[in-house]
């Protein structure tokens, strides 16, 4: 889940919880407030009444009364209770046949050795009537404030997290290692993000320069090796032709030549890979895939014949590829087919078919060879990686790395599936822009 989504979720949920709690507590709170308010009012009325009684004497006021709507209730009478009483309670009173709940203040006092009890009441309904509007006003204000804070939080986290999103979008997603392009600082006043941005940038630079150095090294090393190899090759060839050399020495010269060809082959292959990786080839050719494969078939037929392998090509005649490099694509297919022969069984089969499924174009090369074991599969495109089963083969482990570099150069995706003892399937998925 994205950080922003998480923050938003937390924000909203926490606020909803607070609202719910408050809504649940609201009636109790309001009732308490109301009761306090009522009790205060009763106390004040009592004080006023006592003042009146003290001024005008108790007799005129010793009666019971209630307002016509029975909202308020008043009673002053002689009483026998001697204990001092001063309470406020909620009690029922029967008035004209109705039982009504009242909030009642009870107070007794002595006047001329007579005990009097004063009761003042306010009906509970009146109290409750005041609660409802209070509650709804409080609720509306609360909800309003919550919405406001959610919106404010949202806006601010949006604003404050924007640089992070930009760092992820421009620096991490869709960046093809090691081609990063130039550095552009992400503007932010948040130090953590500045630090993150700079750190990513530094790491990218390190990776980039390491890659660059490796490429340069391979390119320079292979170039530098070419001249000494060339001298050796010429010397051996000249010696081979000279008449005073015996056949026995010639045989040994031939061994030398063989080794030199091996060295030359490795160097040339490394150079080719580095040239591909340094983007030194043009992508301007267009070819008919079928024709290219038949050309390779002709070239490679001696190897097929040698192992009695059947090569079936089923590709539409008019299937063309554009914006490619013919030399490279030729080498890609040559190496794949050559591998399919090398690791095949005597009398085996190789099938090449083109597929067109949901707008993607692919070519599948299936062999009936020895297959690749699952633990080797992730490493088959590594340079100089020789798999255990291929040790007896006369190769140096650069065939598939060439294939990989060429495929990368053309943005062709390679899917490999293999089963030991059954065979391998190399599937090349072509990007749309290469399809003519």
């Amino acid at each position, binding site marked *: 889940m994205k950080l922003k989504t998480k923050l938003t979720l937390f924000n909203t949920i926490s606020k909803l919880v607070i609202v719910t709690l408050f809504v649940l507590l609201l009636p109790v709170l309001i009732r308490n407030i109301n009761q306090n308010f009522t009790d205060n009012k009763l106390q004040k009325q009592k004080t006023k009444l006592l003042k009146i009684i003290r001024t005008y004497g108790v007799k005129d006021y010793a009666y019971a009364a209630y307002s016509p709507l029975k909202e308020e209730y008043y009673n002053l009478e002689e009483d026998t209770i001697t204990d001092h009483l001063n309470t406020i309670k909620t009690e029922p009173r029967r008035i004209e046949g109705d039982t009504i709940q009242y909030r009642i203040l009870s107070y007794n006092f002595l006047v001329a050795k007579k005990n009097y009890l004063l009761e003042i009441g306010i009906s509970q309904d009146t109290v409750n009537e005041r609660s409802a509007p209070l509650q709804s006003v409080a609720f509306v204000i609360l909800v309003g404030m919550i919405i406001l804070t959610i919106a404010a939080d949202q806006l601010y986290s949006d604003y404050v997290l924007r640089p992070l999103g930009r760092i992820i979008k421009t620096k991490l997603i869709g960046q093809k290692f090691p081609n990063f392009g130039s550095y552009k600082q992400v503007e932010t006043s948040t130090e953590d993000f500045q630090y993150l941005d700079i750190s990513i940038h530094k790491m990218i630079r390190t990776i980039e320069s390491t890659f660059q150095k490796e490429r340069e090294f391979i390119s320079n090393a292979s*170039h*530098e090796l*070419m*001249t000494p*190899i*060339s*001298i*050796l*090759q*010429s*010397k051996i*060839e*000249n010696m*081979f*032709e000279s008449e005073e050399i015996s*056949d026995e020495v*010639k*045989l040994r010269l*031939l061994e030398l*030549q*063989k080794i030199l*060809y*091996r060295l*030359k*082959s*490795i160097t*040339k*292959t490394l*150079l*080719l890979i580095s*040239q591909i990786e340094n983007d*030194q*080839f*043009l992508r301007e050719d267009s070819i008919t895939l079928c024709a290219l494969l038949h050309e390779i078939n*002709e*070239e490679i*037929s*001696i*190897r097929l*014949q*040698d192992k009695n392998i059947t090569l079936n090509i089923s590709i539409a005649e008019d299937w063309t590829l554009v914006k490619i490099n013919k*030399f490279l694509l*030729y*080498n890609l297919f*040559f*190496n794949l087919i*050559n591998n399919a022969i*090398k690791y095949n069984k005597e009398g085996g089969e190789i099938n090449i078919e083109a597929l067109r499924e949901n707008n993607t174009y692919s070519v599948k090369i299936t062999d009936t060879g020895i297959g690749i074991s699952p633990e080797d599969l992730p490493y088959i495109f590594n340079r100089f990686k020789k798999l255990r089963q291929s040790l007896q083969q*006369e*190769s*140096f*482990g*650069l*065939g598939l790395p*060439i294939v990989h570099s060429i495929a990368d150069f053309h943005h062709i995706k390679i899917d490999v599936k293999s089963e030991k003892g059954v065979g391998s399937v190399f599937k090349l998925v072509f990007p749309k822009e290469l399809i003519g």
Partner: protein
Amino acid sequence: MNVLIIEDEKALARELEIFLTNYNYICDICFDGTSASEKVAVNLYDFILIDLGLPDYDGLDLLKEAKKNNPDSAYIILTARAEINDRITGLDMGADDYLAKPFSLLELQSRMQAITRRKYGLKNNVIQLGDFLVNLTERTISFGSEPIPGITKKEFDLVAYLILHKNRTVTRNQLSEHIWGSVVNDDYDSNYIDAHIKNIRKKLNAYATTDWLETVRGLGYKVKINA
């Protein structure tokens, strides 16, 4: 024919000289661009072999300069920096061919022969091999008046290469480099030359003997033509 070899690697220049002298060329050597520039100004050559990576001169500049005084020479660029752009520029500037180091001396010789044939329009392109006639222009091998069918491109290339280096043993590696040169793959010993030769013999033996195509035990193959 006169050849100017411009190559700063002295050891390589010497080998080129030995080899070409063997093939009856008259050689002149320069180890740097300055002396080469002097030589092309006063002498006329049939072939000028230029190494592009000279320490004191841009090889392409030298090519341009040499073309002024030696417009009819054949130019072959030799270089260790097999940059694709160099190749295109070199050929655009009028070089006749381009060889990336390391190359086989036999390959150089065959390119020079091809240029000679092209430049001087050599008619003598039909060679007699026993009872067969090989036409290098039409790329056919005939018995009697009829071309033999079913000879593949690779098979013809092999025969033609052996004819070019007639009466010399050509090793499997040299043959292999010639016919597989454009492919980069990771085999170093499976050159399939024997299989090709076997096929050629099988196809031709149906008509007449092929004892002009000799196997030199352990070393390679040779086409024998009595001059």
